[in-house]
């Protein structure tokens, strides 16, 4: 899932204080699970902002709301009218949600981010999140025992550990496992260590963020949707 962390309160306050009517808008999917931007966090943040506004003597109306997801248009619809009555939307969704809502509002109302979107991660234990995938668009986990060297190695090395591995830990921090140490140990257990002996050539990074914004289009689904829409228009006309 997408993991984020709420921005420092003072930073949020600086974003918000010049406005009159603000909606703190939560998203109840990924960022709710990491306690950063669900309806609950949006509600608390709104209350804190109101208290700050009161102390600063600012006449600021701050409400909160939340919807299931900020990355699909259907979920926005029930609140569209309400949203239009504010002069700032402070979104506590991930960066995808902020972008998507800003596009939807098309410059009519600004959308500001309430959280820092951090990484794709897992939750090995409650309240603890780790990055496990870089979303590079060209997966090689079959070659590395299911451990991603692109994000779990601090140098994204593709051909084995650097000289900085110390007692199985990364040179960047003694609290970070060396990904290549883990990969070698995993491959030994799997009995496939020899897969690591081949030199991996330079990667094509154009599938990562280096080839411009990425898109995936499922033509069979889009064709079906278009057909359904056409049918609906036809029957509509028939009436």
């Amino acid at each position, binding site marked *: 899932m997408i993991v984020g962390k709420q921005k420092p309160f003072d930073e949020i306050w600086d974003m918000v204080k010049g406005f009159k009517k603000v909606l703190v808008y939560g998203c109840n999917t990924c960022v709710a699970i990491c306690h950063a931007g669900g309806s609950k966090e949006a509600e608390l943040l709104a209350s804190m902002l109101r208290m700050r506004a009161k102390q600063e003597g600012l006449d600021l109306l701050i409400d909160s709301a939340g919807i299931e997801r900020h990355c699909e248009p259907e979920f926005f619809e029930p609140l569209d009218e309400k949203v239009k009555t504010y002069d700032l939307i402070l979104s506590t969704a991930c960066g995808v949600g902020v972008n998507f809502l800003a596009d939807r509002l098309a410059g009519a109302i600004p959308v500001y981010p309430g959280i820092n979107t951090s990484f794709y991660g897992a939750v090995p234990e409650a309240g603890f999140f780790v990055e496990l995938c870089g979303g590079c668009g060209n997966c090689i986990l079959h070659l590395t025992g299911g451990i991603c060297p692109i994000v779990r190695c601090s*140098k994204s090395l*593709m*051909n084995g*550990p*650097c*000289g*900085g591995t110390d007692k199985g830990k990364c*040179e960047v921090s003694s609290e970070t496992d060396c990904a290549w140490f883990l990969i070698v140990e995993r491959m030994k257990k799997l009995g496939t260590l020899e897969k690591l002996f081949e*030199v991996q050539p*330079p990667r094509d990074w154009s599938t990562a963020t280096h080839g411009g914004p990425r898109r995936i289009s499922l033509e069979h689904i889009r064709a079906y949707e278009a057909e359904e829409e056409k049918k609906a228009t036809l029957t509509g006309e028939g009436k």
Partner: protein
Amino acid sequence: MKSGSNLERVIASGKMAVTAELGPPMSADPHEVIHKAGQLKGFCDAANITDCQTAVVRISSIAAAFIAQREGLEPVMQMTCRDRNRIAMQADLLGAAALGLKNCLCIAGDHQKFGASGKLKGHPGAKNVYDVDTCQLVGIMKKMRDEGLQQGGDKLEVAPKFFIGASWTPMGDPMDFRPYNLKKKVDAGADFIQTQGIYDMELFKSQMEKARNLGLHERTAILAGIIVPKSAMMLKYMDSSVAGVTVPKELIDRMNKAKAAAGDDKKKMRELQEQEGIKIAVELVQQALEIPGIKGVHIQAIEWESAMEPIVKAAGLYPRPVLPAE
């Protein structure tokens, strides 16, 4: 000859090679490079010019290598994968070759977080590159030299002729994988290898045996890394804090003994430790040269370039061979 560099000629002649290290300054003043080059000249076949080691901004490796070369010291320019993507790397390689540089050592480079240690602020917030890693950089350089092609496939009118090096940490974790790590660098095209500093010769011998079993000593020239110890404190630090380096207790004891012999005299304390350090370095050099498959030594007298002369002389490696260019 692949590059015709002095280092390559010495290695090809079958004589034991000696390389040294020269760290460029955090300054726009070339005089420190010139001064250090003067101290090293004549006591090594080539000297590595580090590339912003510990991720601290210094005179660039290429520029410092060019200055050293002008002073008559053959440089091994280093190139880290940290700061350049493949476009900048290849552009720099063409530029370096055009300036007459002939040796290049490929390394991953210290992570940018390293820069913020001790008194220095460094640039821990920098964006690192790591477009390619060491093996891949070696491969790119080989392809440029041998096929006259850029990594992307475009032709080079004149190919850069480099003697290609790579580093090896024989005693780093995971230790049983390290010989294969070396094999990958050799497979990629490394002509010579310089190892991380070695104090534990017995352990190094066993890693070398594994490398020999893979036939690597015949396909590349392995130079054993020797870091000249300056004090007992430095040895203890290297043992506890430097990745892939273990220092046998007896070496630390020897340094402590030398320190104790000076009593309370601080100056003498330093002198005696430095003398002992040079003695230890000479012994390590001699032991390393006896290991089958070793083709030379990479002696690093970090910020202590004047130590090169006594070490090379005492180890019987002086004078350095003078070989005519082809």
